[in-house]
């Protein structure tokens, strides 16, 4: 038989595996996410919610702050779809305007939380030893407080305002993110591609930004979508307890709080914003779970 001799110096070009997966990572994730009905429903609700928040002035049938005492406690009707509250303000309009605060409260503290958590988590995980010990001890201390209590303490100290809600929720929230990022960094740090970057002489700061952070993004995304409803709920709880948003702002939590006294005479005042909170929190949770499933093969990697 004739065997091709001297294989070694024959010029060879390896044909790339054209047939192999061509989709990029995100295309692939989006494709499997689209098949998840609950996640898509969640996504749709969130999209609507964002639109409502943006176009609130055009959508709200009445001025949410306009007090008219002769319209107190109107039952839901064609005129007032969700009825009116104790000051005769239209509940629907207040919910529509309230979505702005909820969205803001949902996203801004979550972003701050993420940012702080990422920075501390990566540094703790990558450098280990003393740095890790200090950062993780502080985060353990934060986590060992009941989070609502801690947020209340901060609010009492700083006074109730939107900005202070952001600060309170960020102080409470970063520790959880830092834990997740640290754990992820610890496992990535020992991956060969990080070792390879070290072997090349890439500086630690660049390794963290170029090699570790991009590989945490799937986890962070899931965490972020689940963090938002957490923030919304925390704000609602704070407002309910009277240390959150202050009247006349139309925060959903505050609306529930104000409506609770009239729960038996005029249940719609408290129930409608309650349902709004429930729906949006569920929507974010569905999307987050869907994302987690879609990213699952990548998370396991």
């Amino acid at each position, binding site marked *: 038989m004739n065997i091709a*001799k001297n294989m070694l110096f024959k010029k060879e070009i390896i044909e790339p595996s054209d047939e192999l997966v061509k989709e990029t990572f995100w295309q692939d994730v989006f*494709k499997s996410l689209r098949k998840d009905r609950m996640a898509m429903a969640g996504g749709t609700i969130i999209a609507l919610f964002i639109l409502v928040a943006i176009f609130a002035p055009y959508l709200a049938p009445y001025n949410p702050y306009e007090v008219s005492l002769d319209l107190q406690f109107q039952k839901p009707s064609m005129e007032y779809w969700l009825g009116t509250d104790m000051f005769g303000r239209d509940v629907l309009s207040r919910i529509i305007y309230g979505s702005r605060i909820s969205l803001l409260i949902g996203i801004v503290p979550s972003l701050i939380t993420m940012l702080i958590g990422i920075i501390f988590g990566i540094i703790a995980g990558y450098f280990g030893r003393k740095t890790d010990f200090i950062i993780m001890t502080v985060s353990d201390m934060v986590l060992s407080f009941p989070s609502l209590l801690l947020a209340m303490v901060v609010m009492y100290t700083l006074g109730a305002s939107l900005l202070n809600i952001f600060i309170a929720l960020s102080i409470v929230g970063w520790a959880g993110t830092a834990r997740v990022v640290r754990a992820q960094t610890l496992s990535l740090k020992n991956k060969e591609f990080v070792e390879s970057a070290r072997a090349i002489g890439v500086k630690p700061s660049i390794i963290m930004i170029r090699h570790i952070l991009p590989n945490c993004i799937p986890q962070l995304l899931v965490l972020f979508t689940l963090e938002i409803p957490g923030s919304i709920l925390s704000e609602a709880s704070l407002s309910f307890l009277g240390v959150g948003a202050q009247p006349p702002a139309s925060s959903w939590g505050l609306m529930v709080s104000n409506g609770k006294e009239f729960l038996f005479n005029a249940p719609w005042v408290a129930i409608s914003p309650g349902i709004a909170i429930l729906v949006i929190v569920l929507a974010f949770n569905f999307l987050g779970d869907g994302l987690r499933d879609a990213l699952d093969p990548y998370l396991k990697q």
Partner: protein
Amino acid sequence: MNDASTILEINNLKTYFYTDKGVVPAVDDISIKVKKGQIIGIVGESGCGKSMTSLSIMQLIAPPGKIAGGEILFQNKNLVGISKAEMRSLRGNELSMIFQEPMTSLNPVYPVGKQVAETLLLHNKHMKKAEAKQKVIEMFKMVGIPEPEERYRVFPHQLSGGLRQRVMIAMALICRSKLLIADEPTTALDVTIEAQILKLMKNLQEEIDTSIIMITHNLGIVAEMCDYVYVMYAGKIMEQADVYELFDHPKHPYTEGLLKSIPRSNVQQNKEKGLYSIKGMVPNMLNLPKGCRFHPRCIYAEDACREVEPDLVDVGEGHLVRCIKYKN
């Protein structure tokens, strides 16, 4: 067709995976026969379908995979479409399997001895616990586990890889299985431990007269252990022959290439020419080449190879080849 000495006969087995991207014919129309006391080798590279063949026999194919055709006759009984309860009573009893990584098939929260005894009790309803324990300890002794009484009580993570694989073998053989399927049983082990396990398997096979299907990518293990060998490539059997015949006179260009491309530790080798290598790479199972599956990598490929898929032809003395060069 079927005589008494045949323990397993697979006819035209097709195991397909129905994925979003298309149908993957992981096992594509293969026929295998295992006689009593025989060690059969199924050899091939990753993705050739060798592991899927073993999982098909054990009825462990999970969706989107499905056995799309053919029959698996184990002691003349077709396992395809058999009820789950019936399969469970066969599995671990007359038919057992050992995997590459024993850690994944042992429960980490139970002592290993108890787990082996469990298998025994499951298939022998009347056996007493003390008797089962005694039997397990005997079996541990047989598979060369030192201090079997103490080892009965330890947890999987307290054992080394080699000992864990011995426990798996004990578990597989405690019910005196008729057929043992070993899927890369030594790939995760060190060379000196691998040699121990292979020797153990061979000794046990002679003692208990179990038939073994050895699934491996390592041609050295095939040469050392098997009586008869099937070479798989991209879901199909390319060549099958007696082990001596296959290594001495490989007929399929793929087998020939594989045998030539492995360096050997027992002889000095000339480095000047480079190692022989099969060009290209394993085809994507979603987009198999037309004609012979191996033709894009074959140095003898002709026009005809690109058109028609060759049949498996008998070239005499139980040597079958799927290549256009050979005729009946």
